[in-house]
């Protein structure tokens, strides 16, 4: 029988201890967002097959996708895109450049740039309701 080393404490405790490092969190978030985006590309491809069924079918579907709930979900999905994209660049820098020396600084840039672009996309996507809101305040 193969030797099975016993962890000094429970499985959960060992893993929680491991994940306290920012790099480990970056790694696990990269996997979760990656799986999420892969699941989404399947939904996306399937949803767009309605294009082959003519304008009525597509526009009806888009009526659902442009309701406030779906617009907010669409915006939240962009956070997965931004994180996975910028952390992906960080991974490439660590692998192919000397990113390992300052991967924590790069991680700060990843989160910072992500938040800025996420808010920017929010302003773009919700410019009409936002404009109406500010008009009513004024």
């Amino acid at each position, binding site marked *: 029988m193969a030797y099975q080393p016993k962890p000094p404490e429970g499985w959960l405790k060992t893993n929680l201890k491991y994940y306290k490092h920012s790099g480990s969190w970056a790694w696990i978030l990269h996997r979760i967002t990656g799986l999420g*985006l892969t699941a989404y590309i399947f939904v996306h491809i399937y949803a*767009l097959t309605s*294009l082959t069924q003519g304008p009525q079918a597509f526009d009806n579907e888009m009526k659902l996708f*442009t309701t406030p709930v779906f617009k907010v979900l669409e915006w939240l999905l962009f956070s997965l895109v931004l994180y996975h*994209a910028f952390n*992906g660049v960080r991974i490439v820098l660590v692998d192919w450049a000397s990113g390992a020396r300052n991967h924590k600084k790069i991680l700060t840039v990843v989160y910072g740039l992500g938040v800025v*672009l996420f808010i920017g996309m929010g302003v*773009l996507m919700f410019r009409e309701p936002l404009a109406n809101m500010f008009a009513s305040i004024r």
Partner: protein
Amino acid sequence: MYKHTGSRGSGAPSWVLQRITGLLLVVVVIGHYFVMHANPASGHTYAAVLERMHQPFWKMFDLTFITVGLWHGLNGTWGIFRDYKMKPAVSLTIYGIIILSGIAFWVLGVNTILSF
């Protein structure tokens, strides 16, 4: 080593390709979001989408996008599974699901793009 994980290759080619396709997707997906999702008029009406779909550039763009995006996503998913010690039967089943679903949805997407 590989004997026990049911793999013959080192995985190096797919590792390099994962990074190359990833760098491509950083630009393409963020660009796609600004063109298609930031503006309801350009992304969510049949007329606007069809107008783009009839241009060879956007056709090529979408075909590349769908191929690279699916490959990157599914190769990444397989990479996650590969991190765990799997029995050969489990490994083969998961690999089969990944390959078959990838081909099926690639055909579905390409069919949508090429029907215009």
